[in-house]
C-alpha cells in the first residue's frame, strides 16, 4: 500500500483517522493508509446512523478485518450527516482508495477550532508520519 500522507489533511495521531475540512463545520473522515495497513483487508464495516451524535475518543462504528473486529474511534465530536453507502457495502474500497472512494462519513463538527488543535496537519505531517511508520514497523503493527 502507498503510505502517503497529503499535507492538506488533518490526522488524528492515535487512531489514524484523516479529516478533510470541507466547510466551516463540515468534515469528511476516513482511515489513513497506516491505520488500514495495520488492520489488513476490511471484510465488514458499520457506522453509527445519520444524525447520531458522536463524541471524540468514542466509537463511531465497527469494522472487521482479517477476522479482527475493532471499534472506529471518532476524532471529533459532532453529528453524522452523510455515510459512504458504497464503502459500507464494499469495505474493500477503504483499502483500495483510502483518501478517495474509501471515505467513511461526513460530520457536522461541534467545535472544530478547539478539537482540531490535537490533529496533525501541514508541515508537521511528514515528520509525524515517518515516526509513526517506524513505530508501527518496530512494534509489529505492519510488516
Amino acid at each position, binding site marked *: 500500500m502507498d503510505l502517503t500522507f497529503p499535507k492538506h489533511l488533518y490526522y488524528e495521531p492515535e487512531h489514524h483517522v484523516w479529516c478533510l475540512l470541507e466547510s466551516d463545520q463540515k468534515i469528511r473522515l476516513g482511515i489513513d493508509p497506516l491505520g488500514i495497513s495495520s488492520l489488513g483487508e476490511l*471484510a*465488514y464495516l458499520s457506522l453509527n446512523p445519520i444524525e447520531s451524535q458522536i463524541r471524540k475518543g468514542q466509537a463511531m462504528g465497527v469494522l472487521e478485518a*482479517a*477476522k*479482527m473486529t475493532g*471499534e472506529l474511534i471518532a476524532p471529533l465530536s459532532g453529528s453524522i450527516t452523510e455515510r459512504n453507502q458504497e464503502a459500507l457495502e464494499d469495505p474493500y474500497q477503504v483499502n483500495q482508495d483510502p483518501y478517495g472512494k474509501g471515505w467513511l462519513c461526513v460530520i457536522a463538527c461541534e467545535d472544530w477550532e478547539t478539537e482540531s488543535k490535537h490533529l496533525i496537519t501541514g508541515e508537521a505531517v511528514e515528520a509525524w508520519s515517518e515516526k509513526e511508520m517506524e513505530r508501527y514497523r518496530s512494534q*509489529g503493527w505492519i510488516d
Partner: protein
Amino acid sequence: MWRYFSEDRVSDYFGLAADETMALRVGKNQSPPILRLYTYRSNSALVGRFQRIENELNLNFCETQGISVNRRPTGGGAILMGEDQLGVAWMLREWEGCQAPRELMKHFAATLCDGLNSFGIDAKFRGKNDLEVEGRKIAGLGIHSNAAGGYLFHCSLLVGLDVTLMLKALNVPVEKLEAKKLQSIEGRITTVRKELDQNISLNEVRDTLKKSFGKYFGIDFQKDHYTQEEQSAIAEMETSKYLNREWIYQKVEVPDLSGESRQMTPAGLIDVRVTMAGRQIKAVFIGGDFFAGESAVADIEGSLRWHSSEPEAIRKTLDPIYIRREDDLSFLPVEVLCEAVLKAIESAQTIADGNTSGYGCFVNPQGANEESQHP
C-alpha cells in the same frame, strides 16, 4: 497481578456480556489483565460480529431444540458452544510494551498450543485464527479491540463436540448428506478427546491451560469473583446488547456470496467452491480427482479462510505452501489451482436470505467435502 475467572454453564447473554464488559474495564484501567476460562450452558449458537444470522443458523431447529442464539463481538464464523467446549478469554491492554494485536495473538496462540502440547497433542497456530492438529481444526480464535484501548482475545476450544448437532444448528442440511460426506466433514474437525482417545474432563483441560498461561506469562493465578460494580456493569451490557433483538438480528450491509468452478485440467477434474463476504473469501473447498495429499489440500483451504480475493494476494499465500508441500502438490500446479479459485470467485453470486450456504467456524462451504477424491 492478573485476575482469573472460572465459570460453568453460563447463559449466552451473560457469557458475551461479561467478556465485553470486562475487556472494556481492562481498557479503562479499571481492572488488571484477565484470564477467563468458562463454558456455556448447552447449547448456544453464536454467530460472528457481522454475519447474517438467518443465513448462518437454522433458527427453527435452534428454537425447537432449546439452543439459544446470539451474536459475538468477535468476527469469524458461527460456532456452537456448550459444556464440552471451553471458552478462553484473555483481556489486556498490552504485554511487555506490545500493543499490536497480531503480535499479541501469537502469544495467545502459543500459550494455547503449549497447553495442548502438554497432553501430547501437536496443535499449531495456522492462518490468521485457527489452531489445528495435522490439518484438523481444534479451536477458533478471534480478537476484538474496544475504544478504551482494551483487547479481548477469544478462543473456542473443542474438548468434545456433537458434530451432527453442530451441523444441524449451523444450517448444514445433514439429512441430505450421505454418511461418507458427514465423515469427510468430521475429518476436518478434531477435539481434545478425539486426539487423546479418552473421555478427559473439561476441568482437566481447563487446569492445564491455566497452568500454561501461568508459566508462559509468569503469573500465579488465584480465582477471582466479579465485584458488585462489575456485576452491575455486566447486567447493563446484557440488557442493552446481548438480550436485545436489534443486536442479535441486526442488518448487515455486505452481501454473502457463493460461487463454484468445475473444470477439467491437465491435472484432472478440479472442483472449487467459495463462500464470500463481499470481496473477502470466507472459505474455500477444493475437490476433484487430481492427485494431491489430503493434508496439503486442507492446508491450502485453511490458509485461504478469511482471505483477500485479489489474485496477487492468493498467489502470495499459495506459493510458500507449494514450496513447503512440494511432494504433496506436484501433480496440481499452482497456476492451475489459482485459475480454478479465481473462476469460482468470479462466478460468485449473492446468497438469498435464509439460504443454507452458511459457513461455520469449523465447517467449510455447504456441499463441501462431498466429492473429494484426492488420495
